[in-house]
């Protein structure tokens, strides 16, 4: 279903006490908090439950119990246009942020509308782009149990991103108002852009069009080893009178290795089960992403406050990279809202 409208549909159903039986969504914790969901013990066979990859199963836990059943995953990866790299005489993808800025400048200097880096901080997925840069500077969403959105490191990171746009001028126009799907990705698909953070469905589209030569690598890091963002989608089973048996049957069938793997492969996503990982590791196309999975980190999806923090980030982060924007003020406000939300 379409992510843009699903929130409204689901909310409507729940307001009317008529939730769906099962639902595939990219958030679960608020639903678990409202006690709307079955836990894994109630509806999953032990065999299915044990097949989940450790990290993804942990990402679906609320109060120590699995409520958001992993259904598919994807990992972001660093895409670069090899033609533009060759023309700018760049021999290897950047490893550090200094390299990154220099390479982006070289590509922008090629002229003819070339863009060093496509930075999407518009409302669609700002939290994803931000997570990756934040982590590669050694920052994080939280420190221990507390939100740390406005830590010094994070302020520095957002300042760096704002400089890309306003000082170095190596991004597309108005990065704070560019979405990923119809903005940054389109520019990369047209061959205008040197670098972008993408994921496997983008690779699929690029291959289908055959217009742009590209390669996939690790993120440039400013602290420690390169980190990327893993995203996990969940299947949730809603508690309704008399549906437990039916849901159980459905899930057992759904999670049979051949079924779930076929579906994941068709869409260009990555597995969430051990059996799926073994099966898919032979696929050369998926190798770069599967290699990234061990270093992938998840956003704090298990925190019920996250569902609101994410929306807050989406609606405000872009303002920080506008000319005259104030990264620190934006992060301070986010931190304040997140802390208030958790305290509730």
């Amino acid at each position, binding site marked *: 279903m*379409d*992510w843009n*409208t699903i929130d*409204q*549909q689901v*909310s*409507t*159903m729940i*307001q*009317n006490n*008529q939730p769906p039986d099962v639902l595939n969504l990219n958030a679960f914790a608020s639903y678990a908090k409202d006690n709307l969901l079955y836990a894994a013990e109630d509806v999953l066979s032990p065999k299915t439950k044990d097949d989940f990859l450790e990290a993804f199963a942990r990402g679906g836990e609320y109060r120590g119990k699995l409520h958001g059943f992993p259904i598919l995953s994807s990992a972001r990866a660093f895409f670069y246009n090899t033609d533009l790299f060759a023309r700018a005489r760049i021999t290897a993808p950047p490893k550090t942020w200094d390299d990154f800025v220099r390479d982006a400048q070289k590509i922008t200097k090629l002229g003819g*509308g070339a863009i060093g880096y496509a930075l999407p901080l518009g409302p669609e997925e700002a939290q994803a782009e931000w997570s990756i840069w934040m982590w590669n500077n050694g920052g994080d969403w939280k420190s221990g149990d507390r939100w740390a959105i406005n830590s010094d490191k994070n302020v520095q990171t957002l300042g760096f991103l704002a400089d890309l746009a306003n000082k170095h001028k190596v991004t597309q126009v108005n990065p704070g108002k560019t979405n*990923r*799907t*119809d903005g940054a990705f*389109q520019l990369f*698909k*047209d061959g*205008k852009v040197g670098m972008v953070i993408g994921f496997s*469905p983008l690779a699929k*589209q690029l291959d*289908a*069009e*055959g*217009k742009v030569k590209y390669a996939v690598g690790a993120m440039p890091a400013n602290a420690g080893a390169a980190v990327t963002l893993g995203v996990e989608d969940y299947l949730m089973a809603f508690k309704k009178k008399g549906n437990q048996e039916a849901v159980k049957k459905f899930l057992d069938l759904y999670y049979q290795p051949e079924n779930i793997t076929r579906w994941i492969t068709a*869409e*260009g996503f990555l597995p969430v089960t051990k059996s799926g990982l073994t099966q898919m590791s032979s696929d050369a196309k998926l190798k770069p992403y599967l290699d990234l999975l061990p270093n992938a980190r998840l956003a704090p999806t298990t925190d019920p406050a996250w569902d609101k923090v994410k929306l807050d980030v989406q609606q405000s982060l872009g303002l920080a990279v506008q000319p005259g924007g104030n990264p620190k003020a934006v992060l301070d406000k986010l931190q304040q809202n997140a802390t208030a939300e958790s305290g509730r």
Partner: protein
Amino acid sequence: MRRAGRTVAGQLVALALLAPYLVMLLTALKPEAELRTSPPRLLPSDWQPGNFVTVLADPGFQSWLRVSLVVAALSTALVVVAAVPAAYHTARRRFRGRTAFLLLVLVTQMFSPTALVVGLYREFFELDLVNTYSALILTNAAFNLAFAIWMLRAFFASIPREVEEAAAVDGCGRLRTLVSIVLPLARPGIVTVVIFAFIAAWNEYVVALTLMTDPDMKPLTVGITSYVTAYVQHWNLLFAASTLAIVPVVILFALIEPYLVAGLTAGSVK
């Protein structure tokens, strides 16, 4: 000379109105790799009329089209049948609370469907009508009825009372007067209402999105968005489907437009 000038001006107006849709049509004829190019080009360099075939052959598209046609046609019929008597009554009779009635009708228009979907869902769920044609037909009819009554009322009001009185003198009953005298005079209004109700139902999105969750019961507006999501971007197919979705409305219009003109002539000859 003056007529020729008008023709040229008319063509310019038509061009201005159609230009964006020309872009849509031409984009629908492009292969995926040509969708975004810099500098942008209006014409495809590799024409792909096959996009339209792909869409027409898509079973999803066929079922969306079916749902849209049924819903739009039936809800329009319902609107006309209900609106004509109501409008005539309010235009001719002075009954207590007439003003209040007209205002109330208007107030129903002020609720944005976006705000009402939650309640609508509950209502139709209780009636066990979620995912049925009836749900969308009733909703569309209800939302468009207010407009229809207001519109037709204005028309009935502008028909001189003397015409009816003359008919009454000639010995016509009230019903006959309405059917044979007043309705033909109000024809431009009725035609406008038909077009309006049909188009509004044809293009309704928010309510359909919420009430029709079964993939087989989605209308066109909801269905075609599946061509472009975060994971697939078949803009050319989306635009091809949208172009096709305009066609039935234009056909409907072509069919009833002559009556609009006929209504006028009938009115002035008498």
